[in-house]
């Protein structure tokens, strides 16, 4: 399945500038294909998170449509869109995002338990093990380091094996070794068939990219010509 942005832009009001309107994301098309890992780089404030949030169904674009397959995300009711996000779109947001009243494994199982489904706890534990924090499954998030919390969020986004995986600086708090591991996991998810978008400052990330995009003051540009899905971490 493909996640497509068609003619999307995001405009914000800004009161203290010469013009009080500005585009965080200028009108652009973007397509995330299944099996591909797209890496999006760009300076701070260039509009990367804004683009990702629009793709995640969390921020209505000022213009254009987001299509998951044939479904126009923003034409759905909030209920339907939420359910779709739960099942098909894994989001790893910037910053730390855990529920402190739940332990680690309960946090990871959230996409299942939210709608009263079976928690898939065994899968969650296996995933946490793979991400290197298997020992922390039954610990409360308050006891975790920043990097460990981040991996909890990654596990939560990946647990349901969503068709689309959107990660906003997923390696920000991680050391080199774990950065490699996480990017490798995201890459693996892509190879397993997901459409993956990773926003990152990590210079090593290009190595994992099937496609490399760059954002510059709201303008999206392709850095290297789009490789077909067969081209992988070639150095």
């Amino acid at each position, binding site marked *: 399945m493909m996640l497509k942005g068609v003619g999307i832009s995001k405009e914000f009001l800004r009161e203290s500038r010469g013009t009080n309107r500005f585009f965080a994301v200028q009108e652009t098309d973007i397509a995330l294909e299944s099996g591909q890992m797209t890496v999006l780089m760009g300076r701070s404030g260039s509009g990367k998170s804004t683009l990702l*949030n629009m793709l995640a169904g*969390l921020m209505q674009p000022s213009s254009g449509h987001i299509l998951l397959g044939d479904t126009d995300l923003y034409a759905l009711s*909030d209920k339907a869109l*939420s359910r779709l996000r739960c099942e098909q779109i894994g989001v790893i947001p*910037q910053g730390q995002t855990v529920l402190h009243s*739940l332990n680690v494994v309960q946090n990871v199982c959230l*996409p299942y338990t939210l*709608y009263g489904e079976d928690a898939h706890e065994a899968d969650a534990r296996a995933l946490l093990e793979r991400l290197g924090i298997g020992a922390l499954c039954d610990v409360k998030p308050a006891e975790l380091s920043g990097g460990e919390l981040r991996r909890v969020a990654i596990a939560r986004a990946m647990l349901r094996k969503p068709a689309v995986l959107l990660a906003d600086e997923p390696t920000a708090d991680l050391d080199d070794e774990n950065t490699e591991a996480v990017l490798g996991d995201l890459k693996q998810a892509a190879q397993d068939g997901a459409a993956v978008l990773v926003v990152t400052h990590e210079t090593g990330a290009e190595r994992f990219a099937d496609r490399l995009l760059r954002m510059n003051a709201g303008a999206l540009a392709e850095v290297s010509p789009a490789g077909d899905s067969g081209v992988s971490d070639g150095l």
Partner: protein
Amino acid sequence: MKQSLVLRDLAGRPVRTAVLTVLTALLALTVLGGTVIVTSLRRGLGALESRLGADIMVVPYEATTQKKFENIVLQGATGYFYMDSARAEKVAQCAGIGQISPQYFLASASSGCCSIPVQIIGFDPETDFTITPWIRRSYGGSLQKNDIVVGNDLNAFVGDTLKFYGVECRVAAKLDRTGTYFDTAVFTSAETIRSLIASSQALGMNDFADADPSKSVSCLLINAAEGCVPEEIVNDINLHVKRVKAIQTKEMISGIADGLAGVSAVIGILIAAVWVLGMVILLLVFTMSVNERKKEFAVLRIAGASRGMLAGLVMKQALVTGLLGGIGGVLLALAAVLPFHTAIESRLGLPFLLPAAGTVVLFALAAILLSVLTGAAAAAVSALRISRIDTALILRGEN
């Protein structure tokens, strides 16, 4: 949404959960406690009114100057006074009287001659219209010589024998509770009380002056005839019969009614104040917790929760804390009011008659419902705000 999330989140925030629960408990406690107390006072007044059971009471003038009569009837003091039956006959001749019946008062002593110091009230079974209907409720037979009927608070039971001035009296019945001072009195027929008065005179235990028990009564109870105004009868008696005082029952208990109105108003204000304060604090706690929890709600959004589910989470938690608090508060109120009703009664100095168990249960359920609704109302504002959060914006704030 899975219930466990609602509960886990409550458990994960013990302080907030405790504050919400305790607050709601306080609301339920005041509303139920207050309602039960006010209702009991109303019932107490009603019971007193129906126990007095007459429009007019006529007593010897001396009894009113010393407040003896009011003290016996309203304050539970023991005492006695008599007037000549000739005076009583004159009263009976006044116009507009529908029913009239004499009563006889005697106070038992605490010394060896008597089992307990109580007020003994004698009535004339032939004419009585106030005490007999009340006795009928717990005793079907007629009172034989030396049979007595005891008030509910007395530590005596049917079949027991109590001794007054050397006379052994059999307890024929125990009356229902009235919440008035009648609950500590003993009732008997005119015939029995006359013999008790005579025995006490023989023992020299009371100061009866010149009373001849066979020719004396203590007071007269009068009901106005159809279409007659009690006030006119009272004026008529006070004008034409010497050395007696006719009192309208309504006026006599107006002091108690005033006291009741005062207490009710204070309780009403108290309930209102606690509720307003409670609502404000509840609203505050919910609003504060919305701000504090925004981030967590954003996480739920990302994981796929709809806006409705977030609002539902807030509302369900409010229902849980409301229910817990409501039940807790109701239990506290019942534990505070039910066992201590006699203490409350003597503290307030007003007749106090607890409502029937069914009514209390009904009040309790209403208090719980009210607490839950209040919690829900306070949470609704927050639920609405939560359901409108802009997830993307919240996540930005945390970068």
